[in-house]
């Protein structure tokens, strides 16, 4: 039984982590492609059109990866989490079915037109198809986060005698307090990934003395989008999201911050330190006094509940994992703002394209938004444990009753092998597109 739950969780964690490497780029990138295409319509400068086309290639490849790795996500609700699906399907089935009906059809119909239809449609309609693809992908994110938000903070439901959750207020799913901050936080983070990727490829071209004109355009666009979105991730969206956690999941917040004890006169913010679960303390701690109280309640001496105030049965199941995920996300988010600030300053001083260390930093920063997005999601998901539906349904009650541990291990290994192959193919092909560069692509 324990094994079974472990493999079910590992399979979901592995497949969703791999899956979300792609949508986090495509959601943000679709907006940037729409921007390039819009600039082309305004200025008629062919560079913008070629830039849009170049990123469309990368987008299409990422999108295809997102689709093929996304289908297993929907299937797994039924295959591995049957009890959860049975009990809550009347509610989360709504938002997931809406995702299929509203966004997948929109995206898939117009992506084909966007990729193959430039000649048939003309530039204006081509722009419209791009915009619709953007709309579809953002709608998809919205409905997934609406589902996620219901699991974090269930609303608009009642529980029947047989344990089933049924919906009694459809509108509540979309006015959920948890939904909007999380959605905007996630979309801003997706834009961070896209802008860092665009800037990194631009930096690569400049440093490599290739496609100079595009290199500059990509760095400039990436840095401006990156600066704005890095700030939006932290404030106001990250701040609002954290306040939701304090309000509705105080034990999760304590674990995220590594707060083992409630402290009189205000809590410090931990920058670095390793949770020691035996002594219930942080080893090698570096912290700044009272800042956490201020950030949370805007009062230097506000009391924040530590883990000692809660019963161990409601502790997040993996406190060190949660703590590290959260601190890595926040740490990287801070570095992103710093780097983008310096880059924007240099851009306005017209020195950016010559400041080598910034270009190198932009290039090597490429993987980190992916790490920040992933650890952000780990914070949300590990933070919800041991619950599937917060405070109402435990993860251990949600797994499929008839699927044995051995079967799940077999399919998990299958997914690992298959995704390794997919990952290698993806890197090879995306490398090919980047190496070829924008100018050479002709239609």
């Amino acid at each position, binding site marked *: 039984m324990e094994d079974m739950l472990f493999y079910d969780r590992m399979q979901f964690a592995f497949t969703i982590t791999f899956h979300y490497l792609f949508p986090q780029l495509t959601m943000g990138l679709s907006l940037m492609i729409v921007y390039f295409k819009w600039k082309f319509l305004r200025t008629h400068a062919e560079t913008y059109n070629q830039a849009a086309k170049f990123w469309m290639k990368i987008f299409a490849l990422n999108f295809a990866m997102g689709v093929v790795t996304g*289908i297993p996500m929907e299937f797994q609700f*039924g295959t591995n989490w*049957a009890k959860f699906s*049975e009990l809550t399907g*009347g509610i989360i*089935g709504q938002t997931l079915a809406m995702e299929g009906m509203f966004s997948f059809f*929109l995206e898939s119909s117009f992506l084909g037109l966007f990729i193959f239809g430039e000649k048939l449609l003309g530039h204006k309609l081509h722009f419209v198809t791009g915009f619709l693809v953007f709309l579809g992908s953002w709608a998809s994110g919205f409905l997934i986060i609406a589902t996620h938000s219901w699991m974090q903070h269930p609303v608009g439901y009642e529980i029947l005698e047989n344990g089933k959750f049924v919906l009694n207020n459809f509108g509540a799913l979309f006015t959920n307090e948890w939904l909007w901050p999380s959605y905007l936080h996630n979309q801003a983070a997706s834009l961070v990934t896209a802008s860092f990727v665009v800037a990194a490829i631009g930096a690569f071209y400049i440093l490599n003395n290739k496609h100079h004109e595009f290199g500059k355009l990509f760095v400039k666009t990436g840095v401006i989008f990156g600066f704005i979105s890095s700030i939006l991730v932290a404030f106001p969206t990250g701040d609002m999201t954290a306040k939701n956690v304090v309000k509705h999941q105080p034990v999760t917040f304590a674990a995220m911050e590594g707060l083992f004890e409630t402290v009189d006169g205000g809590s410090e913010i931990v920058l670095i330190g390793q949770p020691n679960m035996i002594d219930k303390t942080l080893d090698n701690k570096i912290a700044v006094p009272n800042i956490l109280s201020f950030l949370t309640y805007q009062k230097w001496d506000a009391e924040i509940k530590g883990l000692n105030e809660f019963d161990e049965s409601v502790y997040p199941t993996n406190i060190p994992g949660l703590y590290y995920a959260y601190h890595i996300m926040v740490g990287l988010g801070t570095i992103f703002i710093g780097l983008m600030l310096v880059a924007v300053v240099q851009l306005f001083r017209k020195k950016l394209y010559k400041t080598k260390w910034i270009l190198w930093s932009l290039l090597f920063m490429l993987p980190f938004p992916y790490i920040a997005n992933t650890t952000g999601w780990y914070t949300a998901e590990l933070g919800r444990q041991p619950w599937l539906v917060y405070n109402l349904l435990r993860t251990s009650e949600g797994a499929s009753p008839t699927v044995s541990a051995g079967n799940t291990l077999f399919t998990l290994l*299958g997914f690992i092998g298959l995704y390794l192959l997919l990952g290698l193919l993806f890197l090879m092909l995306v490398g090919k597109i980047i190496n070829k560069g924008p100018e050479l692509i002709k239609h």
Partner: protein
Amino acid sequence: MELFWYIVLMTMLAVYVILDGYDFGAGIIHLFFAKTEKDKKAITNAIGPFWDANEVWLIAAGGVLFFAFPTLYASSFSGFYLPLIMILWLLIFRAIGLELRGQVHNKMWEAVWDKAFGVASLFLALFFGIALGNVVRGVNLGMVTNGVSAHEAHYFFLPLWNPTFSPQAEHLGIIDWFTLMLGIIGVVSLTIHGANWIIFKTNSDLNSKLKNVIFKLNIVLLALIILSLLVWHLIKPQPFYNFLQYPWLWVFPIIFFIGHLGLFKIKSFKKDGTGFLFSSMFLFGGLASTMASIFPKLLPSTNSTNPDLTIYNMAAHEYGLSVGIYWFVVAIILVVVYFTIQYKVFKGKMDDIGYGEH
């Protein structure tokens, strides 16, 4: 309310089979009949811009199943765990086969992804036929042995097969001679259907050969259908019960036979799209007849201890189902608009669109 969502779900599944069915069929044709580079190009051009949107019907139908009949979704997806995961892997291979082939110009690279696309299509057609067979035959709900359930009444788990390959064994497998027969019917039907699509959407040199293929496969299909009708009562003692109760249901078998028998005249059709229309009719008629014969069951029980899963005992709560109608109507209108636009833009023959060329 349950009935409304049942009809929605079945219609979406039928649309899925008709649309993605031609992709699978085209893949099978690609595997067995496309010899030259030109033939292969013609086939991938004919399905290139469509297959992704077609596959969405499966995902959307899965979503509607989850939402309207959550208990059935939970029960069947966990019970058919192994074949479903394998279907996922095959869908992935089909997709990457199609999308990656044109990315590198190298004979070996192309050959590998051609085969991936073709073989995955073949197995998908087979698996979907087998899946239909499992739904007709039913499963051992609750995993009953000697009258005692090992699990809750609506849960089960099927191995891929049991050593006897018998559909009447107490502990069934996914694959037995009955479900395999439906699997083969699936492969033959979809091959015909895919060939019709290629004829419809291309001017390829293959087309005249494909008409021959369709004619011959149609004979095979007729033989298989007669065989299945002869043995059907071994699995389902009263297959015509619903049809005798509600005679209007005969319209589905009639549509099926018009589509099927009409295809024998494939060589004299004047318009290239007629064949596709006929094979769509037999796919629709065949699926509708099969589902009508077991209505209102969604998944029959093969033991007497636990009840069948029906649209009534599987449905979600009333409020959710009624509120769903509002958004569903909006969504389906939009979907029709998208598909109209898509098929308008890519109307007619598709030989020159250059799918997969970068």
